[in-house]
């Protein structure tokens, strides 16, 4: 591999690596706007100019590749710094400088590079700024808004729609100082990945309708998380202010979602705001019709005692069943599976809804696709749940149950359907865990408020059997507890050894027990997740995806 020297530091890189990427390897940042690792190199913004020994002119770092040994590059010499100042001046002379009302402020490429490479005064004092009257807030599609005055004509957005989304709604029109981007006549930017153009836009020209004016970004707390929209499991950053989620942004994971995520996924947190929450354990008074009257709130202690007692008393009264959920973390599913084992029941299915096909493009490999509208059906089944939910949701299996435990009040659309709720309600005693106060939760004899995925740590296993960890972004409200804790307390009522559980402890226990997870530890799970060893493991999976995954890994 050829060696290149950048600012005096030499590094070996793969032949064909461009200088922007090579510089990162030696800890040097070459400022760039138009370059994006997944988009074609166009060398347009000229922000990445560097000096190369033996070349008379400065060269664009993004379009210069290291092909053979001996290239000596400088980014900290006066010529380069002067050029950077020059480019920054050019970018700003016609920029509105409306940071105070711009969503991008705080994470803006213009602000950052001005600070680092620009000058603090303007020589553009007598001329009028170029503006694009009438193009200050143009909806390009349902989720993306364009303010042409802020655009720096880097064409990242155009190239994204052409090269990644493959939909090509955007074009670069006009020329010279009037050059602008926009949609082609009759087209709208409504492809499933549309909002990614907001992410690739280095400035505030493209903003997300969903996030617009929702929060100043410096007030946002950010945690690495996983999208729960579908089984693909796009890596995201969950961004919230004091527990109020403001947006999901894709988090780079070359194995899963690369730099992207779909617009549907970005909208899924709104569910947490639109659906009423369970915030305290709740008992349903005998004879209540379950329409919101006849409840008493209670303590976790009492609630869990009640559940414990009913399970113990169930013997001879009927069956016990657990209705799992594709939204459970692996750790929660594992604990529910232990509960099922203890109760001696095989009825523990994990129903999931099917959506349209979600498809996220990836680099140099086929896109990752998903249809299941939940992030972790596979993990839940590997952890010990599984089976057909048909009898419970469509048949009369619940009527034979002395105790039916629903693991997630929001497990799917059925939790909101009157017929399905009625079917489940046939159980003599209905226990519902969950964050959502869904109709199903309202029908429960005991409703137990547990954290949603922003409020807990855990792991999900995605469509390709990759286990990925996500972090708690903020604490659960009221008396809500992470389900792992609550389940630990419940299990402790039956036997020793389940107290003071944390997701980490549960994961390590599960990994010691379940072959697919063998060798994994909570604390050193790679940031990109770990591919599970599903081909060798005995598991109860029947779907094609499992076959595909084992084919792929063999």
């Amino acid at each position, binding site marked *: 591999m050829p060696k290149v020297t950048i600012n005096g530091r030499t590094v070996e890189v793969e032949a064909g690596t461009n200088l922007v990427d090579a510089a990162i390897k030696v800890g040097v940042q070459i400022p760039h706007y138009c370059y994006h690792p997944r988009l074609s*190199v*166009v*060398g*347009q*913004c*000229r*922000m990445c*100019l560097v000096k190369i020994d033996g070349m*008379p*002119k*400065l060269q*664009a770092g993004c*379009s210069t590749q290291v092909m053979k040994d001996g290239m000596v590059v400088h980014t900290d010499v006066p010529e380069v710094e*002067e*050029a950077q100042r*020059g*480019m920054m*001046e*050019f*970018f700003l*002379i*016609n920029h509105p400088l409306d940071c105070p009302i711009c969503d991008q402020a705080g994470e803006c490429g213009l602000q950052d590079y001005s600070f680092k490479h620009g000058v603090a005064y303007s*020589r*553009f004092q*007598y*001329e*009028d700024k*170029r503006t694009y009257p009438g193009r200050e807030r143009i909806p390009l599609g349902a989720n993306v808004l364009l303010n042409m005055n802020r655009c*720096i*004509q880097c*064409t990242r957005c155009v190239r994204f729609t052409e090269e990644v989304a493959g939909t090509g709604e955007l*074009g*670069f029109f*006009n*020329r*010279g*100082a*009037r*050059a602008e981007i926009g949609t082609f006549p009759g087209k709208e930017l409504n492809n499933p990945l549309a909002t990614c153009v907001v992410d690739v836009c280095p400035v505030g020209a493209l903003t997300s309708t969903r996030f617009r004016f929702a929060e100043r970004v410096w007030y946002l707390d950010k945690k690495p998380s996983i999208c729960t929209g579908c089984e693909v499991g796009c890596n995201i950053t969950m961004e919230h202010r004091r527990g109020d989620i403001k947006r999901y942004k894709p988090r780079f994971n070359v194995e899963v979602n690369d730099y992207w995520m779909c617009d549907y996924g970005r909208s899924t947190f709104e569910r947490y705001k639109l659906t009423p929450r369970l915030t305290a354990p709740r008992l349903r008074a005998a004879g209540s019709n379950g329409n919101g009257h006849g409840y008493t709130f209670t303590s976790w202690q009492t609630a869990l005692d009640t559940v414990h007692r009913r399970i113990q008393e169930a013997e001879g009264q009927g069956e016990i069943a657990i209705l799992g959920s594709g939204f459970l973390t692996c750790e929660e599913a594992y604990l529910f599976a232990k509960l099922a084992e203890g109760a001696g029941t095989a009825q523990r299915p994990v129903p999931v809804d099917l959506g349209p096909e979600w498809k996220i493009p990836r680099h140099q490999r086929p896109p990752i696709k998903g249809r299941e509208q939940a992030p972790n059906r596979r993990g839940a089944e590997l952890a010990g749940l599984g089976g057909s939910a048909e009898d419970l949701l469509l048949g009369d299996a619940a009527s034979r149950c002395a105790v039916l435990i629903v693991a997630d009040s929001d497990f799917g659309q059925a939790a909101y359907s009157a017929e399905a709720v009625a079917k489940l309600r046939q159980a003599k005693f209905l226990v519902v865990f969950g964050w959502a106060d869904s109709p199903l939760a309202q029908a429960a004899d005991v409703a137990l408020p547990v954290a949603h995925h922003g409020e807990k740590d855990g792991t999900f296993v995605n469509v390709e059997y990759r286990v990925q960890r996500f972090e708690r972004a903020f604490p659960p409200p009221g008396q809500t507890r992470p389900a792992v804790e609550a389940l630990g307390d419940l299990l402790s009522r039956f036997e020793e050894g389940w107290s003071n559980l944390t997701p980490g402890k549960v994961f390590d226990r599960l990994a010691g027990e379940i072959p697919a997870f063998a060798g994994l530890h909570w604390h050193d799970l790679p940031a990109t997740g770990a591919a599970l060893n599903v081909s060798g493991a005995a598991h109860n999976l029947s779907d094609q995806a499992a076959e595909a995954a084992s084919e792929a890994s063999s």
Partner: protein
Amino acid sequence: MAFERVLTRNVGKPEALTYKGYRQLGGYEGLAKALKMEPDAIIDEVKKSGLRGRGGAGFSAGLKWSFIPKGKDKPKYLVCNADESEPGTFKDRLLMEFDPHQLIEGCAICCWAVQANTTYIYIRGEYTKAAAILEQAIKEAYDAGVLGDSVMGSGFKLNMYVHRGAGAYICGEETGMLESLEGKRGQPRVKPPFPAVVGAFGAPTVINNVETLCNVPHIIERGADWFKAIGTDEKNTGPKLYAISGHVERPGTYEYPIGITFREMLEGCGGMLKGRPLKAFIPGGASAPILKADQIDIKMDFDTVAKAGSMLGSAAVIVMDDTTCMVRSVARLAKFFNHESCGQCTPCREGTNWMELMLKRIEHGEGTERDGQVLLSICGHIGGNSLCALGDAAIGPVQSLVKGFQDEIDRHIREKACPFPHRRYFEN
């Protein structure tokens, strides 16, 4: 000055427009001879002749052809640059309108030399007449067997198409032209890769100017030594067309041996308009820095003009007398470059716009002391930093204005108006 006209020898002979007439005038002899030569021998001959590109950059034509990879794994193309859009330039038009077969012959020889089977002549959109004449000539050439499946019976296949541009100067830049030819927005590509490797439709491509190609049949027919004998020295050879405009008695396209002095050229077109004194001249099109009257004896070849701090470029000579306001002239040029910038790269898009606004302001008498320095600084930020050469082109006139005519800028500032007697030029 006595010399033999080469490129324009058929101008004024309407029969040259037809295939038959062109043959009778001795045409297609060069092609006939070339087809009997090895392709590499042609490249060597053209290299030896010292023929340099007439489109602006003055790059050795033979050398450029030699960059085309050998072998048949990909098709190869010749794209003839007939976009001719630089202000002051109107020489290719003459060649196409009066002697279309000469161009076809030159293209055919080039194609044989690099083994390309397709030529596109990318012609400026406004050149409707030239395009029609070329189309007609190409049709006749097909009928006569000069183009088509077997060029003059040699078995070499060659197709030729006229592709009309849609009105953008930037489509004269070679990679902008390729984009436009491929049906995309005409904007330059990053280089490398160069067109010789990845050109039209991803295949190796030669791009040459009309005049460059028109020289080729004569080189083949009469030999590199004959060609080299014309001109200043080894590196500046052959006949050259100069498009002379401005304050002269008889503006027009003139053919001279390359390296004729500006003074002789001026005499050849009847001298200064109404005998007024020469103030300045642009030796090579809108992008060439302006030369002052004291350079009147300069030899008009590539290297001498470059040494004087300007460039021969497309050899569009614009002559200005003492009534010319340099600020206004340069402001007009700046307006052109701002209008024609493709807008993809930052220094050119923003810089040309800023320069135009600033020069207009100075012309309107609203300049400040500092403007000259700021202009130079903008030029410094554009120069060498833009993606294509349009950015570099745009700064030539501006730099020469500030460096050579600072006194005129100062008068505009001091008098708070243009000191020259004319209407305010820019109303917008």
